[in-house]
């Protein structure tokens, strides 16, 4: 069936033989912009929600504290092996590669992909994935991560799998990235115009209740989620 025939069938059921122009539509919410706007309140609420989902969060006051904290988290996770990270301005310049390398966790930043099977194999073998985030949603303890920078057509080294395939996901978020609701994120994505090829909203570690309604963590996605807030 081609598009014309398919749409014509729909149109006929709607009682039209030709298109009737662009419909008037105004998205709206019963309560626009609810919740606090104060950053401190947003961060606290986010942390409270993430704990409920079995995720961990940490607060640091300077960028210098991040690399040692990541080393500590990895050592406490009991994993050993190589780590992958976004090759992104959000993470570059934090000294992660040196600090982790010295602690026995060699870091590979994912690069611009080559054609074929780019770097998925490498990411899959990693013990942890380190990413930044574009937004953090306080109401639900959610991180929002684009596969490229939202609003920019170019795509540096981010991709879809760094926060997904390794068993441990560590994210670095900045205070000014916090909003209260998912609705605010959808509004901003809409204003930006160019969407990344994938935007993921992730709330805590992967979960399932498919075996006798018993909660199991880390079925396909990461079993541990650590969020560092600057």
């Amino acid at each position, binding site marked *: *069936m081609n*598009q014309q*025939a*398919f*749409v014509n*069938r729909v149109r006929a*059921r*709607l*009682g039209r033989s030709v298109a009737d*122009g*662009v419909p008037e*539509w105004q*998205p709206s*919410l*019963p*309560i626009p912009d*609810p*919740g606090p706007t104060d950053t401190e309140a947003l961060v606290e609420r986010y942390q409270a929600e993430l704990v409920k*989902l079995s995720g961990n969060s940490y607060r640091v006051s300077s960028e210098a504290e991040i690399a040692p904290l990541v080393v500590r988290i990895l050592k406490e996770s009991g994993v050993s092996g190589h780590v992958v990270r976004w090759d992104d301005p959000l993470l570059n310049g934090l000294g992660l590669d040196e600090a982790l390398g010295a602690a026995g966790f060699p870091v590979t930043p*994912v690069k611009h*992909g080559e054609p074929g*099977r780019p*770097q998925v194999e490498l990411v899959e073998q990693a013990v942890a994935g380190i990413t930044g985030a574009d937004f953090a949603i306080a109401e*639900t303890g959610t991180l929002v991560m684009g596969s*490229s920078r939202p609003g920019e057509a170019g*795509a540096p080294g*981010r*991709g*879809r*799998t760094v926060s*997904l*395939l390794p068993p441990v996901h560590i994210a670095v978020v900045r205070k000014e990235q916090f909003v209260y609701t*998912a609705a605010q994120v959808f509004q901003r*994505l*809409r204003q930006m115009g160019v*969407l990344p*090829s*994938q*935007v*993921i*909203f*992730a*709330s*805590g*570690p*992967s*979960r*399932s*209740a*498919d*075996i*006798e*309604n*018993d*909660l199991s*963590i*880390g*079925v*396909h996605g*990461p079993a541990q989620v650590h969020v560092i807030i600057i």
Partner: protein
Amino acid sequence: MAADPHNVPDFKTRIAKALGDERLRGAVRYTADNLRTKRNAVVADLNEQAAQRMAIGSFAELRRQARRIKEHTLKHLDYYLEQAAERIRQNGGTVHWAGSAADVVRIAEEIAERRQAKRVIKSKSMASEEVMFNHALEAKGVEVVESDLGEYIIQLAHETPAHIVIPAIHKTRRQIADMFGAVAGRELTTDTPTLTKFARETLRKKFMAADIGVSGANFLVAESGTICLVTNEGNGRLTTSVPPVHVAIVGIEKLVPTLEDLAVVLGLLPRSATGQKITTYFNMITGPRRPGEPDGPEELHVIFLDNGRTNLLGSKYEEALMCIRCGACLNVCPVYRNIGGHAYGSIYPGPIGSVISPLLNDLGAWTDLPQASSLCGACHEACPMGIHLHEHLVSLRMDTVAMGKADPGFTRVMKLWMAAWRRPAIYRMAAKLGRVAMRPFVKKRADGTEVAESLPGPFAAWTNTRNFPPIASRTFHERWSDLEKEGKR
């Protein structure tokens, strides 16, 4: 999976089988209660938050808004389909149009053939169940593996989902450990971490080796051509990120106009389905991998699916296209809770299944399903979209009669019933007679209530599966006339 009722035993046989399976019934009830309790708690919490302006709206307000969105989209579906198709192509995706289930299969086969694909990995998709996707592709020699833990269990057991949201509710951990053990070639313990770890490792290999990932869609944003998936396990993300090709099967009712509309529908779906404020993952896919991106599929195909959906468009049943497949109506339905999903014999069970299965396919072949309801309206109350399911069920029954497809014996009894009940004298006489005739069969329970657990003759059809309350010792008519005599009105 059998979508053709002629391939399955008749409805009464299926019901009898389900009612005889105590373990299935226990599991269904336990899961339904669990989901219902969680949903009620999360809805109460939302209402409380909204009252303090700490959420985007109360449940009732979100429901009103969601209906507004879907009503508008359905009214202009031709426009939004064309807009979505254009955007998907601009994003680098390919759009296909499937009028029927066979079209979906043919399109998928063509893609597989062109890619010389031998291995398909799937995330959970009711639309793919509806078109019997796995069966068709396996017949062509393509391996299809379900990656949702529940669906994977069901696939190993060669069964169909018993619940829209939690497919393997009727399987015990012992059975699951045995099935996984058979795949592993070794004995597995029955604890959840062991079983989860096995599934993760086994399916991870399948993901890495897959040529094509197949998903459904929970929403599709027309203005940006964005496919949205709501998942908890992460298999939906893997399916759409790891294999070189992603194929999404999208029912035409999944469209919403703008990105901002997602806030409302996303506020309703996880809360209604699993009692979560949000699922672990909400995945928005706008096109395949872009030049320079380190991962993601090289090709994205969107298959728009009609398969009977346009039968509902512009009809009195149009509202049923608002369904977001959350399963809330199943969890509250007294019929579903007693017979589980399999007995319906259709892809979509429960109240929503009883409404859409006849409409998507052929009412003549599915006349049993609209009868399988007590019309109590609990489904309508639970539905996040406020679909008037009970009214549609009555309407379908009327259509059944109008088609001349009703059970003739049943129709005769109903006509007699109607004739008798129109005459007050006969009605009162029957109540008196019934009261006396029922006496020998009425038992007193421990809590003091009285009930008839089995009745003779034609009444046995009722008491085989249900208890019958005894006729009151003083009917309302009698009490009313007593009151009149006492002048207490």
